């Protein structure tokens, strides 16, 4: 069953068009993440789903029912806000039970629900405190508890973890994922953190300037980015974009890479990409993920598309498990992810390998994938 369907939604504030032709469809129990840079309209879209704002054009369906004219309280949704929005004058218990009280649920039942929710989130001992007496992480839990108590058909989260410190954020991320597995409630989750998006989502909608750039599974947005923006947004460290010329190499095409130190390589593109034939002699952006420009790659000996480059290292940044090495290719600072033991020192030359089946080509003018 379709749990949430958004059809051709537009939203304007006055003259400013904030959302343009948004269409999405998720199944019951799915975890959808809306991700994108600040100001791209994620919160606005979430507010439209919640009914806190009205659409300018288009339709929203919740469980196959059109909800354009339905008020937030009747949409069977619950929302967790970035600022938590706990009612300051009420105790934690009251905060959680307020929504139930509004829905005229009997007192003894409310008590049971509050206790159950407090148990799930381990906030039993906080029930009688006021929000001001809680830490950030505890407030976050209470805000989730408030949403949980109502057992809605859709959870909406607006950057719920962005006010927590890094360690707590990772913990809560796992907890949200567990909770979703356990409850199986359809969830729409807004974040600008691509790692959060990748780890939590069943499907990701990547947004920019009020439009959806790609709507797919985490695996696919990583393996198969629709355009330059998605390629650069998903993945950490970010993908390298190296301007280069497409040349004819035998029957196929290839790209020319001039590395720092004078060497020039012509790497043949994998034959899979036929569209590149039209680009011979023209400039493209060569998209290369740092993890595929490394000291060694799995199966590198069997894979005919793996090529070697000798590059001079400019900067080395150890991160622990991996070391990030910067080299210059075609005059662009290029990030490589290498094993700490094989990382060269600045000024040294280092042997790097890259897998041409894992690279992307983008139109430098439109940003579209070739």
């Amino acid at each position: 069953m379709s749990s949430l369907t958004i059809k051709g939604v537009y939203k304007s504030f006055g003259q400013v068009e904030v959302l343009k032709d948004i269409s999405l469809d998720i199944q019951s129990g799915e975890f959808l993440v809306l991700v994108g840079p600040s100001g791209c309209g994620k919160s606005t879209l979430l507010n439209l789903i919640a009914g806190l704002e009205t659409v300018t054009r288009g339709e929203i369906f919740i469980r196959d029912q059109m909800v354009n004219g339905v008020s937030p309280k009747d949409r069977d949704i619950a929302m967790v806000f970035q600022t938590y929005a706990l009612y300051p004058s009420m105790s934690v218990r009251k905060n959680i039970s307020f929504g139930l009280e509004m829905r005229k649920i009997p007192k003894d039942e409310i008590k049971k629900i509050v206790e159950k929710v407090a148990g799930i989130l381990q906030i039993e001992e906080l029930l009688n405190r006021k929000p001001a007496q809680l830490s950030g992480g505890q407030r976050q839990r209470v805000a989730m508890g408030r949403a949980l108590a109502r057992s809605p058909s859709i959870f909406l989260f607006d950057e719920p973890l962005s006010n927590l410190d890094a360690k707590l954020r990772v913990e809560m991320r796992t907890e949200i994922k567990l909770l979703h597995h356990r409850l199986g409630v359809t969830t729409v989750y807004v974040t600008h953190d691509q790692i959060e998006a990748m780890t939590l989502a069943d499907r990701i909608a990547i947004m920019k300037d009020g439009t959806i750039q790609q709507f797919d599974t985490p695996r696919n947005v990583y393996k198969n980015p629709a355009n330059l923006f998605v390629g650069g947004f998903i993945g950490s460290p970010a993908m390298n974009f190296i301007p280069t010329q497409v040349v004819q190499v035998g029957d196929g095409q290839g790209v020319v890479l001039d590395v720092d130190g004078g060497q020039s390589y012509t790497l043949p593109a994998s034959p899979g990409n036929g569209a590149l034939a039209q680009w011979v002699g023209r400039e493209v952006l060569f998209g290369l993920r740092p993890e595929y420009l490394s000291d060694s790659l799995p199966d590198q000996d069997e894979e005919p598309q793996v090529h070697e480059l000798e590059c001079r290292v400019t900067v080395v940044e150890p991160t622990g498990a991996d070391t990030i090495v910067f080299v210059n290719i075609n005059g662009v600072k290029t990030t490589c992810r290498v094993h700490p033991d094989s990382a060269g020192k600045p000024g040294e030359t280092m042997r790097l390998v890259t897998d041409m089946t894992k690279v992307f080509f983008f139109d430098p003018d439109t940003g579209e994938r070739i």
Partner: protein
Amino acid sequence: MAEKSLAVVPRTPGVVAGRIFIYTLLGIAAVYFLLPFLVMVMTSVKTMEDIRMGTLISLPREINFDAWSEAWSSACIGVNCQGIRGYFLNSIKMVIPAVFISTALGAVNGYVFSKWRFKGSEVIFSMLLIGCFIPFQVILLPMALTLGKLGIAQSINGLVLVHVVYGLAFTTLFFRNFYVSIPDDLVRAARIDGAGFFRIFWRIILPVSAPIIVVTVIWQTTQIWNDFLFGVVFSGGDSQPVTVALNNLVNTSTGVKKYNVDMAAAIIAASPTLLVYILAGKYFLRGLTAGSVKG
């Protein structure tokens, strides 16, 4: 914060000299402002004879409260010799409903202008703000006509209405500015939870409004209690507020001028506002500087 930064200032002779200078200046200012009040209090407890003999600032030879009781219950205001007691009660009867209504309406207005904005609400708010700058005199005539039409001219109810209308601009401004610092997400969360306009106001907004309620109540009480012009224009003989009665008392000339009675009456008339500041002045300052509510 302030205490901390004071604590780290080293006590060099320069700093000490500066301190002495500041305190001297503050002391002079305090005396300057308190002196008239002191003269009033001293005069009010003198006998008439004492006043005639001594000077304005000579200490009373004996302390005598006859003038106070005369001012309260037997001084002549016009032809009516029952003191200012009745007018004092008039003022109370006027101030309490006027303050309550204007504060309550201001709170709801402020709530709408900050949390339920609608098309044109900013324009209406700006227009309302102009109300803060309209001089009293300008609205006298239209207000008199309105009160006449409503049939509440020359009555306490009429005065209440005048003060509510005139005060609304200020109370709305106070509440609106306080409420914009309350996160909108609170209202959104409550809407999703199923609460409506008034329930959100009552259960979520009002419980965190104490600082601004204190400020508004003090402000309005002072304004309305101290008002003279509206009182003199819109009240009839027996609905006059105490400020008007005080003026009439001082101007009623039956032979000798009883300075001690005048002074006692003036102090009585001013006492509620004085009291409010002494009791709640701290909260007034605190409320004015109160920051936003953290959710």
